[in-house]
């Protein structure tokens, strides 16, 4: 039984990875799951310098999911290389670094710094809805996305995944722009911008007023977008958005995802990633599937 998948020339032992921002760099959840078992660890977004993030409250539970407005708090690339990448060197899993910035130059600086590091893939965050500058500003217009993708491709030593926002009118336009600019893969969806109001206090629950929604309630939107995007481009699509278990992961693969990321599910079940790896294998055995790649885009039209 073959569970390996290949994204832009990088072979993962299985299609299960973590969603950036929900898993740190694996240190915390390494107490619960064997990181060696995962296809890849996708680290929390890192910028050229430390970012303090947004004021609290930064998280709120909503029906079937949650909102977050962390605001990409991160320790900056220096600490990230010395501490987080060093930690990940101890594991037999692929390392995907999520990169964020306020300006194109910020992104390029991080991409350049990672050039000689043991990093397998870069995931470029042009879709975080919680910061005022950068991030989603590059991910909601096709021409802006095209421009930043081409700039990053000129600098990147590793293959580049562009992480797309669902907060757009037409996801296929964005997927095509990323592909045309040379992206090696795309990942989607990032969180959906939401809001929650406390009716007793008549106040916004999040200090940032809006936050990105994740969790099982967004899954149907994500599956639809993965389906549309994967039909619009030839590069691999990494699917995510509300994956709670192996059934959800398989649904994304059938929709067209070559690999999947598990995010908010970690908060609800710290063993989620590991259980999904097992669950996919069980599904393959049940249906006599020899190669997990057979599932990619295999929904019957």
């Amino acid at each position, binding site marked *: 039984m073959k569970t390996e998948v290949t994204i832009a020339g990088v072979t993962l032992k299985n299609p299960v990875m973590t969603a950036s*921002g*929900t*898993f*740190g760099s694996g240190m*915390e*959840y390494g*107490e*619960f799951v064997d990181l060696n078992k995962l296809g890849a660890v996708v680290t*929390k977004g890192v910028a050229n310098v*430390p*970012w*303090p*993030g947004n004021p*609290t*409250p*930064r*998280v*709120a*539970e909503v*029906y*079937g*999911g*949650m909102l*977050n407005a*962390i605001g990409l*708090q991160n*320790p*900056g690339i220096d*600490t990230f290389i010395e501490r987080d990448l060093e930690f990940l060197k101890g594991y037999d899993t692929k390392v995907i670094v999520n990169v964020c910035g306020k300006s194109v130059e910020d992104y390029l600086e991080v991409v350049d710094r990672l050039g000689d590091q043991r990093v397998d893939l870069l995931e470029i965050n042009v879709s975080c809805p919680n910061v005022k500058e950068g991030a989603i500003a590059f991910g909601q217009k096709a021409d802006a996305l095209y421009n930043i993708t081409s700039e990053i491709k000129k600098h990147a030593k590793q293959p580049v995944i562009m992480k797309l926002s669902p907060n757009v009118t037409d996801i296929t336009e964005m997927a095509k722009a990323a592909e045309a600019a040379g992206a090696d893969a795309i990942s989607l969806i990032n969180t959906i911008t939401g809001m929650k109001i406390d009716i007793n206090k008549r106040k916004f629950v999040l200090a940032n007023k809006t936050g990105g929604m994740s*969790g*099982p309630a967004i899954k149907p939107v994500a599956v639809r977008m993965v389906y549309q995007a994967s039909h619009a481009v030839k590069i691999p699509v990494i699917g995510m958005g509300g994956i709670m278990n192996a059934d959800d992961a398989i649904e994304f693969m059938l929709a067209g995802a070559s690999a999947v990321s598990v995010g*908010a599910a*970690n*908060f*609800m*079940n*710290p*063993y989620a990633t590991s259980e999904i790896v097992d669950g996919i294998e069980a599904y393959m055995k049940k249906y006599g599937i020899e190669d997990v790649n057979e599932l990619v885009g295999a929904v019957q039209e």
Partner: protein
Amino acid sequence: MKKEVTEGIVLSQKEIAPSIYDLKIETELAQDAKAGQFVGVYLKNKSALLPRPISICEADKVAKTLRLVYRIAGTGTGEMSTLKEGDSVRLLGNLGNGFPVEKAVGKKVFLMGGGIGIPPMVELAGQIKAAAAEAGKADSTEVYAVVGYRDSKLFLKEDLEKNAKVVIATEDGSVGTKGNVLTAVSENNISADVIMACGPMPMLRAIKKYAEENSIKAYISLEERMACGVGACLGCVCKTKDVDSHSKVHNARICTDGPVFDADDVEI
């Protein structure tokens, strides 16, 4: 000790004051629980996904029981309040750092609790007493539990009395001093070398100021909305005076670096 998700069995639950519930659970987590730590309680309602952070009121290592005393604040704690003897409950624990019990040994200490910040003081008083006895400093360790309630609907008073001298303040003046925990301190003319506190933010701010003005060391337990509970998501941060060694900015994670902080180190 490693954090884990484990299935506990409910031994009993009762309402001990209006909307305040006393839940006893049989679980291995009790064996190495520290005063001031908390557990994440998962709900059965799958539309409410995040574990509820609930402080540990008492941990009986021998009987392997955890006692959680909490207030109904919303749908999650509302569901928790329906748990009955024999029910299973998924717990994530033990979380957070806990109070530095050793700093109270041989000292005069105030354990200050306000409202639903009172429960952790029960275990803390017990652990301080045990640590003091072990260090041969039982006589020089003096523990006051200075606790603030809204009104005469007191809870956990007898539990606190086992290991501390209890001083009470109520907002309406129906029991003890009318006012807050600091009013009670001044009215009773008592003092301490160390303060350990848990309660609402205005109370913690007042205690931080009081401790600074009187050159007393204070350890305060902070609260914030949490998601993961294990330090990964960076949802529950507080402002720190200096650049934090982990975050490299002026933020510390309440769930893992705290919830207990040296009051001098945080800006609240």
